[in-house]
């Protein structure tokens, strides 16, 4: 039991050293870390928002309203198609939540009506009898639509929240209809909250080619039907070259109009007709795809609802060869040339795009489409100094806690065995730190509580072993034999005790949210690593020590 082969000793020592190496960036002062390679110094444990300060919002998207809007759009298309196919119908009504009901005038036209419905969208699920036809999205389609809306909302949030590029928000999906927004280090959340409630505004305008033909970026006068709008590239350029102007634009109250921005700061602008051809609320979808022919260039496709499709058709038919500007939140994100009349509700934008560009553009288009209202259903904001207080309290508690435990072990089991147990506790803490660095887990205040508790629990394995060794020693065994049997016999109790606590830890992690999770992470990790540090690691220490000292009597 105590005669460890040399390779085992080396492996155990190796694992311990490796953990120490992984844990080290968390313990060294930043002055030392500055001299180390970035990949190493940057692998540190993230502090949770409760420690570093910041805002945490759980947002719920109002999917029901969005779906109802989409159904209303669908019902428009349905009516148009039924009329086109000359199917007489009484009405098409929206059943809030998931379906449309078509009431026919004449039961005999049912199959023709179904054909018309299929023509609008072949994926719809059709049911009902006689002169009523119930049309619903399939469950699959429904799930897809919901996911799209959430993705779109995330995109809007990302753009809104990180407008200034100084925050590092984390935006993640939570379940079917929720979004978690975390912004570390933010001081004032008033603006942030406002941004959550502002949706993107997308409109399509024709470019006033007469004005553009003059070649001036900012003409002295433009006709009253036209205004100037900065382009996205123009604004990005401005932000790079003149950050002060950018700041002023962001903080202006009341907000500056696009025209005012153009006149005052002169970024690259385009003269566009004020009249809106189509609005984002009529845009159903936009995707980054590839052209069918001509080598499959990356392109952007988009789909309008029927109202949008009609308006778009009329506008493009009358303006072939002119540019159509796509304005999102007062910036022109793209101004493609109309190649042909785009009728039938869907079209494509071609150009010399990279795949990345088409993806970005289609995301931008989608984020301007019908957005979902986001409601804050949970909020937690922690000021930086409150976080600093928490760090201080946590650190003091952790240090005092581990120190007290260490003193206890020293007193109870003497310098040698107490020392081994305390060394094991130290290794355990290092391994928890290393594990958290590797897993990318965040350390929270409850997490520190978990660490302190782990320190108390981790020595339990050693207590079990040492008490057993004492018993064996009292039975008159030799030092070597008492140690070996002590380890052996304590093992089953150690495994059972740790595994049951582990069960609690894992379930805490699974069911828990927020603070519970942080606690469960350190507790679970701590229990797992303590199985190594308190048994395998101390056994290695003991085997080396026994061979070195060959004690004739155990002082335990």
């Amino acid at each position: 039991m105590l005669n460890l082969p040399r390779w085992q000793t080396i492996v155990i020592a190796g694992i311990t050293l490796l953990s120490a190496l992984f844990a080290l960036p968390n313990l060294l002062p930043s002055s030392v870390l500055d001299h180390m390679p970035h990949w190493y110094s940057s692998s540190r444990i993230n502090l949770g928002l409760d420690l570093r300060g910041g805002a945490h919002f759980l947002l719920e998207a109002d999917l029901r309203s969005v779906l109802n809007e989409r159904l209303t759009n669908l019902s428009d298309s349905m009516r148009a198609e039924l009329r086109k196919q000359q199917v007489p119908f009484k009405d098409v009504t929206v059943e809030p939540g998931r379906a449309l009901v078509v009431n026919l005038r004449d039961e005999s036209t049912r199959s023709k009506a179904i054909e018309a419905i299929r023509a609008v969208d072949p994926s719809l699920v059709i049911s009902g009898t006689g002169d009523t036809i119930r049309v619903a999205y399939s469950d699959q389609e429904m799930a897809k639509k919901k996911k799209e809306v959430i993705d779109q909302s995330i995109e809007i949030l990302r753009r809104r929240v990180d407008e200034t590029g100084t925050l590092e928000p984390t935006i993640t999906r939570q379940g079917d209809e929720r979004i978690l927004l975390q912004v570390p280090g933010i001081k004032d959340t008033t603006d942030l909250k406002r941004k959550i409630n502002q949706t993107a505004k997308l409109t399509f305008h024709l470019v006033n080619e007469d004005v553009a033909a003059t070649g001036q970026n900012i003409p002295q006068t433009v006709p009253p039907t036209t205004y100037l709008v900065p382009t996205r590239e123009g604004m990005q350029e401005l932000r790079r070259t003149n950050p002060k102007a950018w700041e002023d634009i962001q903080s202006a109250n009341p907000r500056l109009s696009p025209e005012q921005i153009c006149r005052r700061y002169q970024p690259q602008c385009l003269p566009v007709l004020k009249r809106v051809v189509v609005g984002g609320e009529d845009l159903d979808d936009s995707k980054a795809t590839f052209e069918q022919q001509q080598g499959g260039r990356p392109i952007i496709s988009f789909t309008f609802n029927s109202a949008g499709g009609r308006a778009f058709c009329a506008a493009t038919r009358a303006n072939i060869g002119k540019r159509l500007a796509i304005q999102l939140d007062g910036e022109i994100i793209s101004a493609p040339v109309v190649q042909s009349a785009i009728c039938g509700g869907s079209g494509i934008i071609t150009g010399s795009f990279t795949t990345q560009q088409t993806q970005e553009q289609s995301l931008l288009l989608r984020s301007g489409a019908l957005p979902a209202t986001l409601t804050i259903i949970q909020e937690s904001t922690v000021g930086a100094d409150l976080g600093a207080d928490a760090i201080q309290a946590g650190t003091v508690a952790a240090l005092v806690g581990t120190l007290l435990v260490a003193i206890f072990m020293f007193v109870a089991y003497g310098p040698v065995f107490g020392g081994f147990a305390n060394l094991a506790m130290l290794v355990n803490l290092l391994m928890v730190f290393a594990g958290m660095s590797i897993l990318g887990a965040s350390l929270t205040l409850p997490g520190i509580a978990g660490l302190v508790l782990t320190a108390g629990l981790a020595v339990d394995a050693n207590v079990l072993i040492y008490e057993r060794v004492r018993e064996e020693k009292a039975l008159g065994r030799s030092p070597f034999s008492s140690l070996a049997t002590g380890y052996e016999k304590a093992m089953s109790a150690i495994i059972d005790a740790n595994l049951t606590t582990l069960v609690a830890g894992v379930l805490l992690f699974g069911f828990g949210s927020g603070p519970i999770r942080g606690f469960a992470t350190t507790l679970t990790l701590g229990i797992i690593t303590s199985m190594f540090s308190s048994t395998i690691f101390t056994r290695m220490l003991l085997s080396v020590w026994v061979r070195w000292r060959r004690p004739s009597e155990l002082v335990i």
Partner: protein
Amino acid sequence: MWKPVRLFAFKRKFDFLGQRRIALILSTLINIVSIVGVFTIGLNFGIDFKGGIAIQAKAKDGKAELDQLRNTVGALGVGEVSLQEFGDPSTVLIRVQRQEGDNQCVAGAQRVMQKRAGPGWLVKPGAAGTGDVEFTAPAALDGANWRDAVSRVGLTLQERQLPRGTTNTAKVDMSVEQRAEWCQQVAIKLVEDAIGTNYELRGTESVGPKIGDELMRSGIWAVIATMVAIAIYVWVRFEWQFAVGALIAMLHDVISTIGIFVLFQLDFSLTALAAVLTIAGYSINDTVVIFDRVRENMRRYKKMPLLDLLNQSINETLSRTMMTSATVFVAVGALVLFGGPVLHSFSIAMLWGVIVGTYSSVWVACAGLVYLGLRADQLRPADDKADKADKTEQAGA
């Protein structure tokens, strides 16, 4: 170098289970009192479960004036408000009850709008039975400025909700539930506006009605799932009597910990729930170590009466039980003393958990084995590992 001190060396063998009837009465009493307390006095649920708002404010100069604050915040029409000093005299924790989304909240929203978007804004509730809210602007505005203004009170104005024609009124349609969630934000803004000049808002927590209900449900499930999973583990590793004994001990600890929360009216929040679950884990940890020894002794002394055997097992593991309890106790004690106000409820519960967990391992779990009539011949044959251990022992002896 110093010599080890036997901190918990007991020369005498205690007859622990001789007192099992007294323990039974005591434990039953504590548990009944705890349960009765939960239903009569009630738990002091934190906002995690109840929903509501907690704002930590620090006076910009000097001491927080609690009475004055209570009057100010109480007059905002946000329902029940409670204040307490938090950590030091300059810091105060303001708690506002969960908002129900009534007309009072809409009136509050109007005050927020007038303060943040400009005077002259009017906010009115929509048709009864809906959660609709109507906004009237003091002057004609374009779409961007409408959206900007309404976002100041925490709402999103959709394109279709913008006023049409010549009216200056826009309606935001919401369900009653959505309005209740929004009213949480309105209440936060009202408090911010009312005390923001003299107090620095250090932290804000808000839990809407929906999340509160969900957290409560998942919390109850977590407790049940943890206890069942642990009981199953013990059943697989030991015998059913052990599992039942362990389960009763865990229930005992969990219920009496909840009793402590009732007694001291500690804040029962998510972290408190974490404490309860950890106590369940700790209690079982202690129990399992004794059970392990019971099993070992049952295999060794097949003829020994159960009561003696249990007593002997408890005595043999006693110094370990005391040692581990002591180390965990000092670690948690450090949390109580230095962990700060946020962890206070959690640490106190844990401290109690260490004591009650140790007690229950002996007097509830082991006493349970007596009442459940465990017999040596019911034990499964020892597994390989224990066999090996026995052989080494014989070889050594």
